[in-house]
């Protein structure tokens, strides 16, 4: 299945882009997607357990992804 990964702020610098369409196995979890992203980041600039939002809501690592989900990897927020 396909999901869309979004990267913001310093994490967009890590991956050199803000958006990535990705093929992942059916039934993948947020945690499994993060492990895949870590494998694309050999310099370990992404922290071990970044915040993740699925379809604009914060998600836990065990949340199961579905085809078409928008998965945002969220750096420490600094609004205000």
């Amino acid at each position, binding site marked *: 299945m396909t999901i869309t990964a*979004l990267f*913001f*702020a*310093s994490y967009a*610098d890590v991956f050199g882009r803000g958006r990535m369409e990705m093929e992942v196995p059916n039934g993948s979890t947020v945690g499994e997607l993060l492990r895949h992203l870590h494998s694309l980041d050999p310099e370990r600039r992404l922290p071990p357990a970044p915040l993740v*939002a699925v379809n*604009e*809501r*914060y998600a836990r690592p065990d949340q199961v992804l579905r085809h078409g989900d928008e998965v*945002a990897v*969220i*750096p*420490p*927020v*600094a*609004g*205000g």
Partner: protein
Amino acid sequence: MRAAVVPTPLDATALLAEVASVANGASIVFVGTVREVNEGRAVSGIEYTAYEAMAARELEAIVTEAVSRFGTSDIVVEHRLGRMGLGEASVVIAVAHPHRAEAYDASRFVIEELKRRVPIWKREEYVDGTRAWVDPTAARAEVGP
């Protein structure tokens, strides 16, 4: 109640007027502005970016929680995105309530929750020409000039 993420300059006076009502005895406006110094470094400006759809959703969720928790629907928050110079306002929170204690508490609640969970980021620009993403949870990572 209202929450918005906007690209344009903020107007604290307009937000104060928006929450005003003869039912309220206390109005509080919080304005967050760009400081010339942060952690000892001379700042020339800040660029705010966001996961815009989610930021708007989270801001609205925070205001909805504040309305229910503090018992007033007169709460408005606007966060600006884009580049801001020194002294410019990045966020304005206006709250009005019959009583002052709840007005202060609601205002404080909104800014603290905003800083905790709304997906907005800022990149500070320094007078020495460098810039860096601000990470409130750690030391900063430097990004080139």
